[in-house]
């Protein structure tokens, strides 16, 4: 085994671009492991973890490129590093347009700009967002690791200027039909939605589209907006905007667990919007009854309620399995070995992780997680599952200096392989998120791991139930039908929504408890 690295001073590339370079570089014959990253402290820590270090790396700065290679022979290391320019150039756009380097230059080039989309590393994000707000721009702030203090300040500055700050840690928005960040190809229509929940917004907007209706605007607020410190500044601004928008007839609000105080203050505000409102808040035990605000437990129910309002239909029947699905659950449970008892959810979507826990908890299951709905059910070590476990693999614990599982399936593939080693694994629950900027072929990335996990269970004399949901539309670049067909071929039971997949898992586990 041989190790080598090179440092290129003042060559900055974004993390997704470098991920693509690393993927191709690591596929070179003889390469065991590789890393292509910028010299930030977090990245240097990651290099130390894989045993790569040295003076050059210690001295590297955040705008210096580091490429490290661990390979079978020193010759392979040298040959890969010698071809670095080729790796970088083959992926890098060589457009004719001159490069712009600062926000100010961008504004000179596009004086009519009214929205800054910012996805720079978290430590620089607040500075760039302040510049954008001061220049009169709305901000979509994808970056995470921005302090609450900075978030409060950014939102105060924006409010003074009548501007909107979507984020920080905002994954999705649909502004007048334009998908920003991780968003899907969704038609326009009369339903508006505000969300402190990236994949929650994607699931809601996709289901509305798939039901034949459309979205006026979907406004992401960032995952901390309904924290006590921030107090819902963007949520309020977005709700008021949708209330005033003539194209929005019904407003939905989807949120990860809000702070209790923020939630209490929000409710009366929802009642004053003057339009029908549907609320879906994960982690909220109960809320006061309201004739104007309809509270629902799942995103699917929020979709159903919104459509019912548009079509002036009556009461909504809560989400449930069909008779055929129940029969299928019973059939699959009967094939399990006695020691197969636990559910393991390996998710890319944070909101799906909360929703799954909520649905299972309501049905009497105790579910552990790295992002628990109830603090007492936090995993001691996110690296090891415990009982029924549902993981948000997009959480910072897993993604620090590594690509998010919605962009690259490596983290989830490794975890599925790990989980499949255990004989007590009964049900593997997965989510797949399609749309702009997501992995181009998310099912293909996990296909072999799914087949391998099922084969491992079969070798042990049991059968692993793989249950999957696909969040996407027929207009998304990944071909939703193809992704669903591939999952079926891999042996998974496939659902068009996360909530339905979770309900099916509950039936699988329930049936087992009752006996065949």
């Amino acid at each position: 085994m041989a190790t080598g690295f090179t440092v290129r001073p003042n060559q900055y590339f974004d993390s997704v671009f470098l991920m693509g370079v690393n993927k191709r570089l690591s596929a070179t014959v003889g390469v065991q492991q590789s890393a292509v990253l910028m010299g930030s402290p977090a990245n240097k820590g990651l290099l130390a973890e894989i045993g790569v270090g040295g003076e050059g790396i210690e001295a590297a700065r955040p705008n210096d490129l580091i490429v490290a290679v661990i390979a079978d022979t020193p010759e392979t290391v040298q040959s890969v590093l010698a071809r670095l320019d080729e790796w970088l150039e083959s992926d890098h756009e060589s457009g004719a347009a001159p490069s712009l380097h600062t926000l100010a230059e961008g504004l000179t080039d596009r004086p009519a700009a009214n929205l800054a989309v910012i996805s720079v590393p978290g430590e620089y994000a607040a500075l760039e967002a302040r510049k954008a707000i001061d220049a009169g721009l709305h901000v979509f702030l994808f970056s995470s690791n921005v302090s609450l203090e900075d978030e409060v300040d950014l939102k105060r500055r924006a409010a003074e200027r009548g501007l909107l700050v979507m984020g920080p840690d905002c994954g999705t928005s649909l502004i007048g039909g334009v998908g920003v960040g991780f968003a899907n190809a969704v038609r326009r229509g009369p339903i508006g939605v505000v969300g402190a929940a990236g994949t929650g917004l994607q699931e809601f907007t996709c289901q509305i589209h798939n039901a034949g209706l459309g979205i006026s605007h979907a406004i992401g607020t960032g995952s901390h907006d309904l924290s006590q410190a921030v107090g819902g500044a963007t949520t309020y601004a977005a709700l008021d905007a949708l209330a005033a928008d003539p194209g929005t007839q019904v407003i939905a609000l989807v949120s990860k667990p809000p702070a209790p105080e923020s939630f209490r203050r929000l409710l009366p505000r929802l009642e004053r919007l003057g339009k029908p409102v549907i609320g879906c808040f994960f982690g909220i035990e109960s809320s006061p009854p309201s004739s104007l605000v309809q509270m629902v437990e799942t995103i699917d129910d929020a979709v159903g309620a919104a459509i019912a309002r548009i079509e002036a239909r009556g009461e909504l029947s809560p989400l449930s399995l069909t008779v055929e699905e129940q029969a299928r659950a019973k059939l699959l449970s009967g094939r399990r070995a006695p020691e197969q008892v636990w559910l393991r959810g390996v998710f890319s979507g944070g909101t799906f992780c909360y929703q799954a826990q909520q649905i299972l908890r309501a049905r009497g299951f105790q579910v552990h997680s790295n992002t628990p709905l109830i603090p007492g059910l936090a995993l001691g070590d996110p690296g090891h599952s415990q009982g029924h476990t549902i993981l948000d693999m997009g959480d910072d614990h897993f993604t620090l200096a590594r690509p998010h599982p919605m962009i690259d399936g490596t983290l989830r593939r490794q975890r599925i392989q790990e989980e499949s080693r255990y004989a007590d694994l009964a049900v593997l629950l997965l989510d797949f998120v399609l749309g702009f900027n997501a992995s181009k072929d998310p099912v293909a990335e996990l296909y072999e791991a799914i087949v391998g996990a099922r084969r491992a269970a079969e070798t042990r004399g049991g059968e692993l139930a793989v249950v999957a949901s696909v969040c996407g539309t027929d207009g998304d670049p990944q071909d939703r039908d193809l992704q669903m067909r591939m999952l079926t071929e891999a042996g998974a039971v496939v659902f068009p929504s996360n909530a339905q997949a979770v309900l099916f898992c509950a039936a699988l586990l329930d049936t087992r408890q009752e006996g065949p």
Partner: protein
Amino acid sequence: MKEENDPIRELLERPPVVVNLGLRIFAESLEVQGVDVVHIDWTPPAGGDQEMIDLLDRLL
């Protein structure tokens, strides 16, 4: 704020014009949707020197 000058309402009424800082794929996906977008080849300010960045931040 007067209704005729409400930047959020304007954002929702007209296609946005975007300045993109950070991940290039975000600019590319906006272009695919027909949005007027300019991508900035952003690099860490002050060579990534955190003390200098904090100083710049305080000046804003």
